[in-house]
C-alpha cells in the first residue's frame, strides 16, 4: 500500500523560477496541525471532540456494527447448513413444497450435493464447510442462523430488504437508521461508512441511502481502489490551501458579520475547518502502512491478487474506523467476473464460490481475531449475510439458483452468543422448518443489542411514522449471550 499524500506538490508558475518552498518545507507545512499527531493520539482526541450522542433506549451490549455483505447469495448448503440427505439423493429429481420461494428457472431439477465437505469446528463443534477454512477457526465466535426467510427470489428486492427492511420502496438503510438513532461517536467522521469494493450491489446506492432521514446519515463511501473518499485529496499544496483558507476566514467572517452572525454561514465556515482536517484524517485512517507486518499478513494484504488485497484492506480499515468511533460499517464484495452479483453462481459454482471464498475468508477471520485481541469484539457486532441462499437443486451439475425460503446468515460479537446454531431448514435445505425468521427479526435484534427498541426508533415521513422494521420484527432472545 502506498502512502496517501494528502496534498499535491506545488505547480510552479510557468516561466517562473523554482518553487520558493523546498520539498522538506512543504512536508513540514503539510503536517502542521492535525497531520503531525500520531494516530493513537488522534483517536483519543476525537473521542473528546465527539458531538453529544443520542442516548440509547436501554443499556447497550454493542456500540457498533460491522456488516459483511455477501452480495449475490452464498449457498447455505455449501457453507453453514450441511445436508447429508442431499448427498444421498444427489442426481435424483427434485420435488419440494409449492410454497418454497425458490427459483426454478427450468424444469428437470435435480438435487445437487455440496462439492465441499462439512466438518465440526471449535469447542462448540459448529458445522462449517471447507469453503471457509479460516472462518472455521473462529467458529466458537459465530452464531449461525439457518432459518432466514425472504420475500422474493430476486437480487434487487432481497438486497433492499436486507439493507432497508423493504424490498421495493425507497427506505433508509439500517446503517442510516443506526446513525440517526444513536448519533456519532466521532464528530469528525460519518456515522455510517460503506467500505466499497468498486461494485454497487443490486438495488443501487439505495442500499446505503438515508432516504427520508436527514442526509447526514447516508453512508460515506470509502473506495478500495484509489482515492478512498470523494474530494478528500487536497487539490492544492498545503501552503496554497492555507493561503486560501486565510483569505476565506477573513472575507467570510466579514460576510457573516454583515449578515447578523447568521448561523448557516457560521456553520459553513466551520465546515471548512473540519474539511481541512479531514483531508489528512481520512487518508490516515485509510492508510494501513503503519500496521505491523504480522497484522498485514494476518488480513492477507500480502496476497497476490488485487481483489484479495483490496478486500483485506477494507477489512483492516473497518477495524481502524471502528477504533476511531464509526457507528456502522458495511464491507461489500468485489465483483470479479462480468456484471453479475459476486456470489450469484447459477453456473461455475465450484470455481467462483471458491474464488469468492478465497477473497473474503482470510480477511474476515482476521478481522474477528483482531477485534477480539483488542477487546473490541465485546461491543462490536459483526454480521455476515447475503441477500439470499441458493437452491439445493439444480438444472445442471455446477450451479445453483436464487433461494429465499430458508437460508443462512451469521453474527458474532456484540453480546451475541458464539458457537451456536439457530433454526433449521428441512432435510434438503429447502424451507425453514424450525424457528423461521425474517430480516426484520435480525434488524430488531441488532438494534436491541445497540440499546435501541426497534418499535421506538421512528421518523415521520409522507404521513407516517416510519420504522426500520415497518410493522414487523421480534428480538430473538435465544441469540443473545
Amino acid at each position, binding site marked *: 500500500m502506498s502512502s496517501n499524500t494528502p496534498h499535491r506538490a506545488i505547480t510552479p508558475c510557468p516561466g*517562473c523560477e523554482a518553487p520558493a518552498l523546498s520539498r522538506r518545507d512543504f512536508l513540514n507545512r503539510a503536517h502542521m496541525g492535525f497531520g503531525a499527531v500520531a494516530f493513537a493520539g488522534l483517536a483519543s482526541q476525537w473521542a473528546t471532540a465527539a458531538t453529544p450522542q443520542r442516548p440509547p433506549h436501554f443499556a447497550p451490549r454493542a456500540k457498533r456494527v460491522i456488516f459483511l455483505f455477501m452480495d449475490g447469495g452464498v449457498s447455505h448448503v455449501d457453507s453453514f447448513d450441511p445436508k447429508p440427505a442431499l448427498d444421498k439423493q444427489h442426481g435424483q429429481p427434485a420435488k419440494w413444497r409449492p410454497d418454497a420461494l425458490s427459483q426454478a428457472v427450468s424444469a428437470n431439477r435435480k438435487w445437487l450435493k455440496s462439492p465441499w465437505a462439512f466438518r465440526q469446528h471449535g469447542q462448540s463443534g459448529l458445522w462449517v464447510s471447507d469453503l471457509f477454512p479460516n472462518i472455521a477457526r473462529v467458529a466458537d465466535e459465530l452464531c449461525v442462523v439457518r432459518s432466514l426467510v425472504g420475500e422474493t427470489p430476486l437480487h434487487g428486492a432481497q438486497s433492499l430488504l436486507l439493507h432497508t427492511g423493504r424490498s421495493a420502496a425507497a427506505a433508509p438503510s439500517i446503517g442510516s437508521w443506526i446513525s440517526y438513532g444513536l448519533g456519532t461517536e466521532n464528530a469528525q467522521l460519518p456515522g455510517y461508512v460503506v467500505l466499497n469494493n468498486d461494485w454497487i450491489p443490486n438495488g443501487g446506492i439505495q442500499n446505503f441511502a438515508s432516504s427520508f432521514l436527514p442526509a447526514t446519515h447516508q453512508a460515506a463511501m470509502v473506495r478500495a481502489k484509489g482515492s478512498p473518499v470523494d474530494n478528500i485529496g487536497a487539490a492544492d499544496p498545503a501552503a*496554497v*490551501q492555507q493561503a486560501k483558507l486565510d483569505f476565506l476566514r477573513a472575507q467570510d467572517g466579514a460576510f457573516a458579520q454583515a449578515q447578523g452572525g447568521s448561523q448557516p454561514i457560521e456553520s459553513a465556515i466551520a465546515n471548512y475547518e473540519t474539511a481541512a482536517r479531514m483531508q489528512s484524517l481520512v487518508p490516515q485512517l485509510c492508510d494501513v502502512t503503519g500496521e505491523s507486518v504480522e497484522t498485514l499478513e494476518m488480513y492477507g494484504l500480502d496476497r497476490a491478487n488485487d481483489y484479495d488485497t483490496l478486500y483485506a484492506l477494507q477489512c483492516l480499515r473497518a477495524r481502524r474506523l471502528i477504533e476511531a468511533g464509526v457507528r456502522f460499517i458495511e464491507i461489500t464484495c468485489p465483483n470479479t467476473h462480468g*456484471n453479475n452479483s459476486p456470489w450469484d453462481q447459477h453456473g461455475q459454482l465450484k470455481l467462483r464460490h471458491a474464488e469468492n471464498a478465497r477473497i473474503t475468508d482470510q480477511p474476515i477471520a482476521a478481522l474477528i481475531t483482531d477485534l477480539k485481541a483488542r477487546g473490541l469484539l465485546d461491543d462490536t457486532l459483526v454480521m455476515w449475510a447475503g441477500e439470499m441462499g441458493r437452491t439445493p437443486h439444480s438444472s445442471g451439475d455446477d450451479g445453483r439458483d436464487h433461494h429465499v425460503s430458508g437460508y443462512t446468515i451469521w453474527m458474532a460479537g456484540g453480546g451475541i452468543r458464539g458457537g451456536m446454531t439457530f433454526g433449521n431448514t428441512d432435510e434438503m435445505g429447502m424451507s425453514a422448518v424450525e424457528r423461521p425468521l425474517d430480516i426484520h427479526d435480525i434488524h430488531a435484534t441488532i438494534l436491541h443489542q445497540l440499546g435501541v427498541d426497534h418499535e421506538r426508533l421512528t421518523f415521520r415521513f409522507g404521513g407516517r411514522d416510519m420504522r426500520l422494521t415497518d410493522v414487523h420484527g421480534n428480538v430473538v432472545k435465544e441469540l443473545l449471550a
Partner: protein
Amino acid sequence: MREFGASAILMLVAALQLGAAQANDWESVYRDRLKWWSLQPVSKPALPKVKAAWPARNEVDRFIHAALEAKNLKPAAPADRRALARRLSFALTGLPPSIELSDGFALDTAPRAFERLVQRLLDSPHFGEHWARHWMDVVHYSDTHGYEWDAPAKNAWMYRDYLVRAFNTDVPFRQLVLEQIAGDLIEPRIDARAGLNESLIGLMALRMGERRHGDNGDAEGVTQEAMADIIDTMGKGFLGTTLACAQCHNHKLDAVAQRDYYALTGVMMSTRWNVRTVDAADANLAVIAALRHIKRGIRTETAERWLGAKEGVTEKIQAIPADVNATAAFPETLVALWKKSLKTPLAPEEFARERARRVAENKANLKLLADFTRETGAPGWQWDGSGMHHGWVRDGEVVVADEGTNVLAQILPAGRWSHVWSQRLAGALRSPLFDANSTTTFSVELAAGKHAARSFIVDQAFHSERMQFISQLTPRWQTLTAGSFSSLEGSVDRAPRRVYLELVTKSLNNYFPPRIGYGGLKESDIADERSWFGLTQIHQHPAGKPPLDELARFAPLFDTPLANEPWAARLASLLHAALQRWSRGECGAEDVRLINDALDAKLLPNDMPPRSELAKLVASYRDTEKQLRPDRTIGTASDWLEGRDERVGIRGSYTQLGAEVPRGNIASLGGAVARAQPAASGRLELARSIAHDRNPLTARVFVNRVWLHLFGEGLVRTPDDFGHLGQPPSHPELLDYLAARFVEEGWSLKKLVAMLVASATWQQSSLPNEAALNVDAENRLWHHMPLRRLEAEAIRDSMLRVSGRLDPRLHGAPTNPHRAATDDSKRLHSGPIDGDGRRSLYTKMTLMEPPRFLAIFNQPIPKFAAGHRDVTNVPDQALAMLNDPFVIAMAKHWSTRVLKDGAPTAEQRASRMLAAALARPPAPEEIARLVQLVQRSASLRGAKVETLLDCQPAWQDAAHAIFNLKEFIHVQ
C-alpha cells in the same frame, strides 16, 4: 410473519390514535375528514385592512402586513438594490446577474425599473430552464430507471426540454396538468418551431423513477410497484395528497379510502405505457419523394439487367452440383428443386399431391388474424413510426442496400415494412389484447434486423424480458404462443393478465437499450440508428400446425409449355416469367419469393458495376437517405379502449384480491365519473378533474410551490402534503387569494411570479430585526427574507457563468457527469469535467448514481416526489468546493481569461473578479485581501512581483478562493 408486498404502509401513530377505521364506519369517518381545510373550495377573500404605514406594494403585502400587525411586528427594511437584483436573477433564472445588470438596476431610478428588470428576466430563455428544474424535483426526473440495471428512461430528456419550452412560453399550468396525465387523449398542443406534439411528451412525467425489469408473470407486483410510484407522484405532485398511503388500507388520517387507491390503479393499469413518435408533422415527405424517384430508376435499370440475364441464369443453375447430403424435405427453393431434380426429377403427380396436402392442411388449420398486405386488414392492431407510415407496399417493392457493394438488399412481398425507404425510420406494431384465459398459438410472417424486437407485454410491463431481437432477412413464418404467462407460485387469486404483442424498432422500444449484454446486444450496436422489421400476415393455428408453403409458384414447371424444357432451362424460364411480371409491376408474393431465392443463390447480378448508371443511382440514393430525419420518440402512454377495473389488494397484497373497484378519481374529487367512451381507461376524465378550475387542491398546491421557490419556504411548509400530517398554511387567506387569482389569470406562472416578486414582502432585506426573531424565530410571518444557500444547480451554473465557460444553448441529450470511478456494466460512464459547459439541468441524472457534485449540495435523489429540498450544511460541501475537479477546472478557465483582460494592476483585476462573482463593487479591503492571496500564491510559486499579472496559477487560486466564498453560494 412474512407479508408479501405490504411494505411500509401502516401509519403507526395514526393507527394508535384512531384505531383502525373499519369499512363499516368509514363513511362517517370519511364525511368528517371531508371538512379538512384543503378540501374546501377556494374562495377569494377580501383584502385585509392594514393600519400600519409600511409601504404595501401589492395585495400580497396586505395579507402579510395584517398578520405582522396582529403580532405587533414590523417587516424588515427594503433590500439593497444590488442584493435585490442578484436575488431576482437567481430566483427567476437560476443564474447570477452580470455586474452590468446589477449596476444598471442600482442606478436606474425610474419608477418602473424593477418591473422592467422582472420582465427582462421573465423573457430570458433561462427562466424556463430554472423553473423546469423545480418541477423536475416534483416528478423526480431521472434519465434512467435504477434498480438492478439502470435501464434508460426512454428519451426522458425530451420531457425536460418540453418543460423548458412550456415554462418559457408560459403554457397555462392547467394545460400542463392535462398533458402530464392525459396528453395522449386531448387535442394535441403543437409547438410549431420544434415541430413536436407537446401534449404527448407530457406523460413522461408519470414514468419517472425506479422500474424493475421483467413483468408480473416473472414476479407478481412488478407493474403494481410502478403504478404505486405513478399514483404517489401524481397525488403528491398535483394534489398534495399522500394517496399511496391507501394501498393497504383506508388512509389513516385523510379522506382517501383504500378503494380510491385501486380506482386510480384501475385507470393506470388500463393504460399502455408505450414509446411513441412525437413529431407533429412528417418532416421527410420531400426526401421520400426524391428517394422514390431514384428508386424507380434503380428498379428500371435492374429489371433491364435481370431480364437480359436469362441465358446466364440457366448456365448458373447447371453449374450447381448435386447435394450429396440432400435432405428428404420437400424442396421449397429454386436451388433445392434443381438439386432434387438432378437425381430423380420431381414427378408432376408427387408435386401435385404435396401441394394439395399443404393447401388442405392450411385450409383446415389457419385462421387469418391480421393481414398487413391490405391497408385495413388488421383491425385492432396499431402501428406507429414514419417507417410504418410510409411502409405499406405491394408485392415487389425493392429495398436499396444502404451499404456495401450490392444494389438491392431484398425484394419485399406486400405488407407493412419499416425499412422501405430507410432503416433509420421508426416502426412499431402492437396487437390488441390476447384472450388471457386461453393459450393462443399463431404465426407471423416477418423479417427484421438491426435489433428490432418482438415482445409480449404482460400487465403493462415497462421492461419486458420476454423481448427477443429478431434477425431474419427474408420473410419467414415465426410461431409464437400467447397466454402461458405463469406467475409466482402461491398467487392463485389474481386477475387475468393483460397481454399484447409488440414489434418495434430500437427507437420505439421501451426496453432499448436493455441491460448490458441482453440478447447478445453489443454496446457498439446501440449507436447504430438503423433498425427495421415488417410483416405480411398473422395466422392463428393449433400448436404444431404452422402455415405451410403452398408452392404455387412452382406449378408452371409441370404445365406445358415449360414442362417440355430441360430442368435448368425450365427453372430459368420460371424465374424469367416472374421477373417479367415484376418489371411490369404485376408480380405477386410467389414471384417475390422466386426472385429473393434467386438473389440469395446469386443467380441474378446484384453488384454495382463501377461508374455505371446503377452505381450512380445507388450512391445518390444513399446520399439522399442521409437527409431523412429519424423519428423523435419518447416514453409516453396510450389508451386502447380496453379499460378494466382492478380489485382491491387485501392489505396491499398483489395476490390476495378483494372486490373490484370502478376505476376513476378518488371519491373526494369526484370519484369514478361516466367516461366519454365506456371502455376507456378513464385517464382523460381523471386529468380533467385534477386540472379543473374548482379542484380545491391543484391550484393551491401549485401556487404554494411557486411561493416556496421564491421565498425559500412555502405558505404550507409541507408542499407535497396538504393533508392532516402536513402543516397548515401560515396564511390561509393569502394562499386562497393567490390560488383564486392564479386561476382567474389563466393559470399563468409568469404572472404569478411577477406579482410575488413585486411585493414589498419579497423585496425585504434578509436582515431580521431582533424583536421579530424573538416572537417568530421560524419566520412564518415573513418579517424578513431568509438568507438562502443556492441550490446545487445554481452553485455549479454560477461557476460556469462567472468563469465564462457557460454554454448558454438550450435543450438536447444529457451530458454524462464526470465520474472518478465508472461502471460500464451499468453504463455509468464518465463525461467531461466541465460538462461541456452546459447547465446542470443537462447533466445526466442516472438514478443508480446521480451526479455527485449536485447530490452533495442536496439535489434530491430522484426516487420520489421532492417538492422540498433539504439544505444540509456539511463538510463534504467544503471538500467539494476545495477539491472537486470541476471547481478547479472552472477556476482555471476563469484565470486564463482574466490573464488576457489587460488590467493594469493586480488591484484592478481583483476588483473586477470580485464584482463579476458577487454582482457588487468590492470594498477596498476586500480587494486588498484578494491581492494578498494572489501575492502569497505567486511567491509560493516563485513568481516575481513584476510578473504577478502573468502568473496564471496565482490567479487560478484567486478564482478558486472566490468560488469558495460563502457569499458566492448564498443569496441575501
